């Protein structure tokens, strides 16, 4: 591997890991979420370095652009926004650390055990296969750019080999979505509602004087009839 590429790789890894550590150590929870975005962007840059453009872009689009924003939104909507941060490490942090370390070890150790000695060979084999495929696709001559798992391959894989898992996941997501909508709908009817002047007048005309519940909040007529 080129030294320049190696340097960039280490810089990006330092950025990713550093912001990852910041996520779990900073006290301000919003700052933690912002550091999380930086981690996501670092991971995307690492993908880019591996020439997995599509994956990198999807990482930015989905994680940095959407998931982290949802996290931030959830924090802002549920917590006291303007207050100072709370302590993020609770007393049994070491249990969490051990679990994380064990999981990481469980993935990395067998891989290194099996492939560690022949790592370079595997990589060059894979490269050779890719070059061969690209040459065949290009009609016999070796193309200038060797595509690595491009959009087409991903699309074909999702629509072909992995169609069933893909559909299962989308079904799961749809179920989650419907569940969320249902919960939101249920709470909307129970939600405190401020009546406008016209609504109040209309209610008074119908003989419903004070549609308040025991907590003093106004409830809409439909909810009352439902109860």
């Amino acid at each position: 591997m080129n030294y320049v590429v190696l340097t960039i790789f280490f810089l990006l890894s330092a950025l990713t890991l550093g912001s990852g550590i910041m996520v779990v150590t900073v006290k301000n929870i919003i700052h933690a979420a912002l550091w999380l975005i930086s981690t996501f962007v670092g991971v995307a840059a690492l993908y880019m370095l591996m020439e997995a453009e599509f994956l990198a872009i999807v990482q930015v689009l989905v994680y940095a652009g959407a998931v982290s924003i949802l996290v931030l939104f959830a924090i802002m909507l549920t917590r006291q926004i303007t207050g100072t941060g709370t302590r993020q490490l609770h007393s049994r942090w070491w249990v969490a650390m051990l679990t994380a370390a064990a999981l990481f070890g469980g993935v990395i150790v067998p891989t290194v055990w099996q492939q560690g000695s022949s790592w370079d060979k595997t990589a060059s084999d894979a490269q050779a296969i890719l070059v061969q495929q690209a040459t065949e696709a290009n009609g016999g001559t070796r193309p200038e750019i060797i595509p690595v798992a491009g959009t087409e391959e991903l699309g074909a894989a999702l629509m072909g080999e992995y169609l069933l898992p893909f559909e299962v996941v989308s079904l799961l997501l749809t179920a989650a979505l419907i569940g969320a909508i249902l919960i939101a709908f249920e709470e909307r009817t129970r939600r405190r509602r401020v009546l406008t002047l016209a609504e109040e007048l209309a209610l008074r005309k119908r003989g419903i004087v004070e549609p308040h519940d025991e907590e003093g909040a106004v409830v809409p007529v439909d909810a009352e009839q439902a109860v």
Partner: protein
Amino acid sequence: MTYWPVIAVDAWIGLVLVSIIKVTLILVGGSLGMMFLTWYERRAIAYMQDRRGPNRVGPQGLLQPVSEAIKTMTKEDITPLDADRVVHFLAPVVMLGATVLAFAVIPWGNLFPSSLRVGVLFIFAVTGLHTVGMLMAGWGSNNKFALLGGMRGVAQMVSYEIPLLMALLPIILLSGSLSLTDIVTRQGDWYGFGWYVFSPVGLTAFITFFIAALAEGERTPFDIPEADSEIVAGYLTEYGGMKFAVFYLSNYMTNLALCFIMASLFLGGGNGPGVTALGTVLGGLLSLVYFFIKALALFFLMVLIRGTVPRLRVDQLMGFAWKFLLPIVLVNVFSTAIWVAITRWGPQAQIFTDWFGEPASDNYLRYGVAIVVTLIINLLAVYAVMRINRRQPSDLTEEEIALGLAG
């Protein structure tokens, strides 16, 4: 073998130099474009309002943005006392960074700064980072108006990103590529008039994309994050001087980028009559001219809308995205698939060949059938969505209107 390190170094320097030149061109071009846009918008809107607009600094007031840039740069840089200083400072940086990144793949006519295979996705991925900057600005300012504006802005951007990307899908289906380079070159058929906007599906995609782009670029009637009459200036409330200018720059560069993208994706980019005939250099220049005319026409449309209509309310804005735009773009994706099937499927569907003949670019029967079918589907979809969304006013009793059920 002994020479290769020298060559490698040479190539390296060349690569770096070319990159530096390209980056400089993008930055200078983007900023100059933004300056021109502000002047253009102010002059255009002034004429709509019986005014003259800026016409004193430089010829026709063209240097007005320069004087304003100097003004903002020399202003005091104020950070509120209780603001989160770092976040407050970084917010404009993130905003501008996201915009400038997008310019890396946006073509200028038929000239492409860098050809990314997934260029279209790249643009929307990095401009999606605007939301981060907005939220940072809103939260970091420690101001209620700023926070409200930031939250509104993020909710709006997240909602409109979906129809925006969905409106893009037909173009990707039609061109079969995610690369802006490919998409633009593929619109060069038919004497430079093979623009995607000329097909029913492309037209629908263009209109929906344009509306979503208005929201994405925070233009009227979707300028809710900085609704000056409601929440002062939204997330910009606590910004002044250079930081405000950076936000402004980012906003207008985003609009410029959106106009460029729309011109490239739907209006054929730099393609037009005579571009291919004139060769690389002259044709390239002509393509640049065509391109700027298209982009400026689109921007003029944005200005026209800004000069005409009021702003939507937040809930109406969300409703519009989810109940109106999204169904239409979804149906449009479907009818695009039909379009592609009718115009291109040869061996995949023998029945089409039997009916309409072999697929070819001069098989007008296939194109005619495709136009009719997709047009019918899209019109039906628009009609149905409008029907469902809008109950006729006569359906409501006066009391129902008074009860606020009309909105």
